[in-house]
């Protein structure tokens, strides 16, 4: 029964994660939403690639939730479109997505296994399949012995886990998660990331919004920075970093006050033997390093901007 499959399907517990042939690409193009005279989302475009995790960042009211709700069809689109593998998304596509809305809570007064079974059924699973998968996910979240408990009796962190389980029950083709990590402790974040990675491994694109920039920095393959309903920057982490002026840290044995006034060198900071600089061209670099050798060069490194820095810079 468990004979190995030539196409390399991995079995985990009761469920087979089949790497999809091409995965799914989720894209928004020129998406706009107005409420009366206010434009909340203003002509934004970005894509979420198969098997990749895309971070959606922005301040409160930047339009993240509105965008996600439009992508999921909860909110009508004023103009623009949502594309699924390059064609307009359909209801069936959306039903195949896993979605975790912003303000959470499933049915507070229903047992968790029971309601997961129901949600699975609505996604086209049979009752038995849905319950089996719910059981598996709950056990994975160490909630196996609480499956008969009402949702409201669980801690907030555990309720959040149930919510994640609800989004993953039906082996979704794409995941749209609004603040999935908020309120979770670091261990819980790690175990959830591990779970998401399993789904990404079979080509599922993941879009999640977050305020935790360090987390986005650590987890995401690419990101979209939103502010005032507009995309300020988007791309892979490297693309975003490369688009910023590169800065360097210089440390020598002696005082480096001499960096000021060198042609082609922009000094951001000097502190005794250490300086942070940006260089205009290779000539400037050459001159700087020559001079630094004389001062007893200890270190010359590229300073990659952290995501927080990029975020602060673009939203400034």
């Amino acid at each position, binding site marked *: *029964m468990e004979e190995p*499959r030539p196409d390399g*399907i991995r079995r985990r517990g009761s*469920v*087979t994660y*089949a790497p999809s042939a091409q995965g799914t690409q989720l894209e928004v193009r020129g998406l706009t939403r107005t*409420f009366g005279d206010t434009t909340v989302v203003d002509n934004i475009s970005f894509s979420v690639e198969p098997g990749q995790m895309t971070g959606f960042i922005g301040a409160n009211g930047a339009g993240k939730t509105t965008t996600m*709700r439009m992508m*999921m*069809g*909860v*909110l*009508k689109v004023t103009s623009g479109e949502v594309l699924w593998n390059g064609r307009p998304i359909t*209801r*069936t596509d*959306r*039903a*195949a*997505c896993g*979605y*975790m*809305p*912003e*303000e*959470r*809570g*499933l*049915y*507070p*007064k*229903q047992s968790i296994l029971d309601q997961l079974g*129901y*949600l699975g*059924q*609505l*996604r*086209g*699973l049979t009752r038995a*399949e849905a319950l089996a998968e719910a059981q598996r996910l709950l056990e994975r979240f160490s909630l196996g012995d609480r499956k008969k408990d009402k949702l409201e009796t669980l801690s907030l962190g555990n309720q959040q886990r149930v919510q994640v389980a*609800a*989004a993953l029950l*039906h*082996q979704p*083709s794409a995941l749209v998660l609004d603040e999935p990590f908020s309120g979770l402790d670091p261990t819980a974040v790690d175990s959830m990331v591990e779970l998401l990675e399993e789904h990404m491994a079979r080509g599922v694109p993941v879009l999640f919004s977050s305020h935790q920039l360090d987390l986005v920095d650590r987890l995401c393959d690419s990101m979209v920075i939103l502010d005032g309903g507009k995309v300020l920057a988007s791309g892979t982490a490297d693309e975003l970093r490369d688009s910023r002026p590169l800065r360097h840290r210089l440390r020598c044995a002696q005082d480096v006050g001499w960096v000021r006034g060198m042609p082609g060198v922009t000094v951001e900071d000097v502190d005794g033997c250490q300086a942070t600089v940006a260089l205009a061209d290779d000539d400037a670099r050459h001159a700087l390093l020559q001079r630094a050798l004389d001062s007893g060069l200890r270190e010359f490194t590229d300073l990659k901007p952290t995501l927080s820095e990029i975020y602060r810079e673009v939203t400034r």
Partner: protein
Amino acid sequence: MTSSIDQQHQDSQTSVSRPWLIVMLREITVKVRDKAFIFSTITTLVLIVGLMGFSAFLWDRSSDYTVATDSQAGGQVVQIADSMLSDGDSMTAEQLSRDQARDLVADGDADAAVYQEDGQWVILVDTELGGTLNSTLSSAIAEFSMATNAERAGVGMEELRAGSEHRVEYLTGGEDRGLTTYILRLVFAMLFYMSALVFGLAIANSVLEEKQNRVVEILATAIPIRELLYGKVLGNCVLVFAQIGLYAGVGLAAANVTGVAADLGWAFEAAGWFIVFFVFGFAAQATIWAVLGSLASRTEDLQSNTTVISMVLVAGMFAGIMAQGPWLAVASYVPIISSIAMPVRLLEGQAQVWEPFVALALCLAFGWFMLRLGEKVYQRAVFQGGRSLKWREALKIEQ
């Protein structure tokens, strides 16, 4: 096995064929496990059985009268009286001396004493002469005296009685049903009012729960949102019909067991109509409750925005209990209110054969209109958190 899982994976990509059915089943299973629901159903059942038992007690209470007398003639009078009593009742004579007869009545061991004094019959009682005892004994004495006189005059009893038979005719109904009719009106009105209110609020709360907890957003990605409305309305309709069916069934069984059925048989047709009207009337107003739930943002909002529909139901209840003549006739055509008023008219034998069908058609049309309108409001309002909305406001929302 593995290929079936692949297949299953494929299948899970398509949405379900009848989502309303799944929603409906959840609505039902959650409710039948709800302790308050179980408790109120059982309480009502106990009340129904109790009521039937009580009626049976009132109807069936058999009376055994003991009448003391001091003569053979008295014994014959009691015998005649006994034959005049209805099936359950009986009267037995206790033949003693007059003083003993008096003592028996004084001690309460006999209900009355009959004897002749100075050529006149005397009915002796302690403090009070009951209606039945009075009329039967009086008739029996008259009958006995007549028979004695007839014999003395040499005339046969039949000749004497000739032309004295009579029968009673009623303009409406077959017998005096005033009180029973009134009680049934009360039962119809209360049952519909209570069920509509309780299940209506249940629908509103169920919608509001999903709205408040944003489950509705997850559901909306899986199924068309109107399917959710259909499922909820249908689920609660099924529940309320099952409940009313259970009440009717248990009531009928209790009526048969207690023997009340024979006395109530004439009311069954109207009761059957009541159930049909109940089904239509409840379904017609169910959507309204779902919409009210979607318009509210907190449970407190339901108290204010359900005022109008509650008033309509109260009006329907009072019309059912109290309205007469043309008022009742008008009420029996107004959707929702007709669910009580039309069965009441049928109960009283006032309605023509075609009338209930017209009322049902009107109710159906109203329900259809409410469903179409409600769908529009519901789809918009259910995603709007923050504050309570009005119907008009919700219709203006860009979805």
